[in-house]
């Protein structure tokens, strides 16, 4: 062995140490390399920080813009249900009362607003018609609905909480200001003055709005009355279809592929197909749904049943992949033990392997369902947008077959309407959608933690 100090410094050593330099002092090259190291690490930290920052921005945007949808401005009024207007015959015949359209209720509301303003002694240049303009167009319909269901109240004075129109609501939420309404024909500065005075008198106030969570969509002119409830039911029915079809089919397919499939071309084709379907863009499934389910099989378009079928095809690969993973995680000794005491292969799978894999399968299914719940693109093609589902379905069959929307489709619909009041509702709808997704994913995580078994 030669002494190290005797070997001459070979020529290709890039930077021989200068004479007399201390080992403790870093050479320029080392400094450069260390700086590069620090930079590289900083890039990594920066990348993660940007990612997390984006998440933060996204979440704060959603909550700051959407939380307003859960509150709504209401105007409390005492309305005298004039018999002379609502029931001219005076015999409380329900058919006669129904003949009065919402148009006939408008003067009553106008009168109620005027009475209230005069009673409070508010000085305003507005005419009664413009004063009533701070109310939603929905107010007359609310009143009519009440009168039709309570005909005995005609002639009495009843207290109502009417929705304020969307501009007034925006004014209370800070979305609308006196500057921004300069060219707005829906509201005037004088009306905002009136609203200010009514806020003082506690007539106009902002409260929690249950109707946004439970109500139905409303037409373009009445954003203040729109809600998510009916589209939530549409999503619910779709998820029922997905669960009823995708879970059994997915589990059956996984059992075959994982436990029984021989190594042959058929198995190969199936495997290739499943992994490809998992990567097919969701809109292609929408095209399939439109062409096969609606155009060829003539299933009703916009129906949650069709949506459910399309989403089933889309979720199947996800469920199959996770189910196969959890079947694979069950050790072979379980199967061998079952076979050893005389069970058939089918019995060993169905009596032993499947129950042990069940928590994993369930977790995968919930994640697949969450993915399906947030999917929008295929629903656009099968017509789950563009109309107003105003009534909740009254039976399971109509829930599956009558046209409805779904949560993400409803959000898209609101985003398309290009009105800040509907934008607020779209963000609010996203909060509701995310609450569902977070709940489902948390459930999946808890299930996995609770039942995960280490072999």
């Amino acid at each position, binding site marked *: 062995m030669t002494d190290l100090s005797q070997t001459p410094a070979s020529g290709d050593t890039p930077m021989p140490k200068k004479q007399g330099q201390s080992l403790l002092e870093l050479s320029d090259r080392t400094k450069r390399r260390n700086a590069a190291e620090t930079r590289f690490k900083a890039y990594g930290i920066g990348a993660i920080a940007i990612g997390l920052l984006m*998440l933060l921005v996204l979440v704060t*945007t959603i909550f700051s813009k959407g939380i307003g949808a859960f509150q709504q401005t209401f105007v409390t009024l005492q309305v005298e249900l004039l018999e002379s207007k609502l029931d001219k015959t005076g015999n409380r015949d329900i058919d006669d009362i129904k003949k009065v359209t919402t148009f006939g209720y408008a003067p009553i509301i106008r009168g109620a607003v005027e009475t209230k303003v005069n009673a409070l002694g508010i000085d305003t240049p507005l005419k009664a018609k413009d004063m009533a303009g701070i109310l939603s167009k929905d107010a007359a319909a609310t009143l009519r609905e009440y009168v039709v269901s309570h005909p005995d109240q005609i002639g009495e004075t009843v207290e109502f909480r009417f929705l304020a129109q969307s501009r007034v609501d925006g004014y209370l939420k800070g979305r609308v200001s006196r500057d921004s309404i300069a060219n707005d024909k829906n509201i005037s500065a004088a009306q905002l003055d009136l609203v200010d005075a009514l806020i003082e008198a506690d007539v106009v106030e902002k409260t929690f709005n249950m109707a946004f969570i439970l109500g139905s969509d409303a037409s373009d002119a009445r954003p203040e009355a729109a809600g998510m409830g009916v589209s939530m039911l549409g999503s619910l029915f779709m998820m029922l279809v997905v669960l009823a079809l995708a879970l059994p089919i997915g589990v*059956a397919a996984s059992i075959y592929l994982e436990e029984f499939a021989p190594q042959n071309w058929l198995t190969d084709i199936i495997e290739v197909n499943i*992994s490809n379907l998992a990567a097919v863009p969701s809109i292609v499934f929408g095209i399939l749904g439109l062409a096969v389910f609606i155009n060829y*099989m003539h299933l009703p378009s916009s129906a949650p049943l069709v949506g459910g079928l399309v989403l089933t095809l889309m979720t199947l690969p996800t469920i199959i992949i996770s189910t196969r993973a959890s079947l694979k995680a069950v050790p072979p000794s379980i199967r061998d033990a079952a076979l050893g005491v005389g069970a058939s292969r089918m019995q060993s799978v169905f009596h032993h392997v499947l129950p042990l894999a069940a928590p994993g399968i369930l977790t995968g299914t919930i994640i697949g369902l969450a993915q399906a719940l947030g999917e929008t693109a295929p629903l656009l093609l099968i017509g789950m947008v563009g109309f107003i589902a105003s009534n909740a379905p009254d039976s399971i069959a109509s829930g599956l077959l009558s046209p409805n929307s779904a949560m*993400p489709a409803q959000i898209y619909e609101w985003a398309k309407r290009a009105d800040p009041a509907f934008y607020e509702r779209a963000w609010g709808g996203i909060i509701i959608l995310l609450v569902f*997704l977070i709940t489902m994913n948390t459930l999946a995580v808890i299930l996995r933690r609770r039942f995960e078994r280490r072999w």
Partner: protein
Amino acid sequence: MPTIWLVLVLIALSVAGFFLGRSRALASANGNPKNLHSLPSYYGHNVALSALVPALAILAAWLLLQPMLVDTRVSNMIPQEAVPEGTTLGLVMSDVRRVAEGLDIAVAQGAMTAEQARNLRTEFSDVRGLLGEVGVALGADVRPEVMRAAQAYRTMSNTGTTIMTIVVALVAVGGFAWSYGRTHKDFRARNVVEQGIMALLIIAASLAILTTVGIVLSMLFETRNFFTLHSWTDFFFGGTWAPNFRGDSELSILPLLWGTFYVSLIALLVAVPLGLFAAIYLSEYASAATRSFAKPLLEILAGIPTIVYGLFALLTVGPALVRFFGQGEDGILGVEWMTGATSVLTAGLVMGIMLIPFVSSLSDDIINAVPQAMRDGSLGLGATKSETVRQVVIPAALPGIVGAVLLAASRAIGETMIVVMGAGAIAKFSANPLEAMTTITTRIVSQLTGDTDFASPETLVAFALGLTLFVLTLGLNVLALYIVRKYREQYD
């Protein structure tokens, strides 16, 4: 819904079959299960499955095939000269179906008797008015040959449904009787049931093939129709996308492809560096605590529905970009480069954010799969950690990373909601990322929503676009898998 009732009756029959089969088997063994070949429940399952499965299969096949057969038969009845100028047989057939549906509704509501519906003649009564009364609005007066075809359509559909009910019921009862008759203590019920279940499992697994075939066939079929109406040279080599519902549209895929690629490129420019560096940091530098905290948080980005990103692009990122690059003197940069919130950059940036976790978790797995010995060797030679990553780990993981990027690219090309809401609707060739452009998926959505007429090239072009999209993403995925598979074996 008589079909639902039929299914319910079948299920009831099969449940009854389970108990009857089981008790018959036990009876044949004098009540002692030990004398049976299989467990008693297998005899029950045998009867239940034989009654239910073949009948349900025939029901499903019948429901699928009947509309097609009836359609062909009825459309043969319509003479060539009854198809007016400017429309097609398909349009006349949809009229026929609508009239037939209207007659069904009218009969169901009691507006006319079944006898009247069969013998109604347009020559003698106002069919349009009659159907309008029951809520079926027709665009034009019903022509006599359409009426006759509609009546034939109804008759055939009704006869078909009746025959279907009878056949399905016969098959169910037959299966029941046959398997019930075979139930005896020496009958190998378990083997038969297990074979049956195996067949069901295989069918479930084959559904994946069926779906792919369904996707390809449905799009191929309509694409062929499209190419009979529109020249394929214009579609593939034209330069303009200008659908025009009066006809004479220019429908070329090239401007859409350009928009798609441009948006995807920007998305990848955002997602690949960020995702890759995040993956490197998480797998090589981060402590276990950081990793367990940052990785799931990043992956939340992948779990957020795309509609949320779409809204984020339309209402937050777009207006923010306009404040930077637009509004002239009032803007932050004082330039007037951008007018609307929708642009290639808007959609690309947001899509990039969505793809970060996609790239990072795939690359993370791949980087972790590089053997530790290679890192140790490099570090032992005196390389710093970053030199090890750059010169040893990344080259070793490169095929996998390329695969991950290709998968991300296929995701970006197929992404719909973000581009629908963020990219705009103008088809053009432009290199300016601040302009609105449109993509394949956006055009599919806009051509297929609303009133669709499956006889016009403007609607059918969506299927050709869909097929192109399918082929593109499939190609990218296959390529990605091929690269990953080919080079993965090196270290296994």
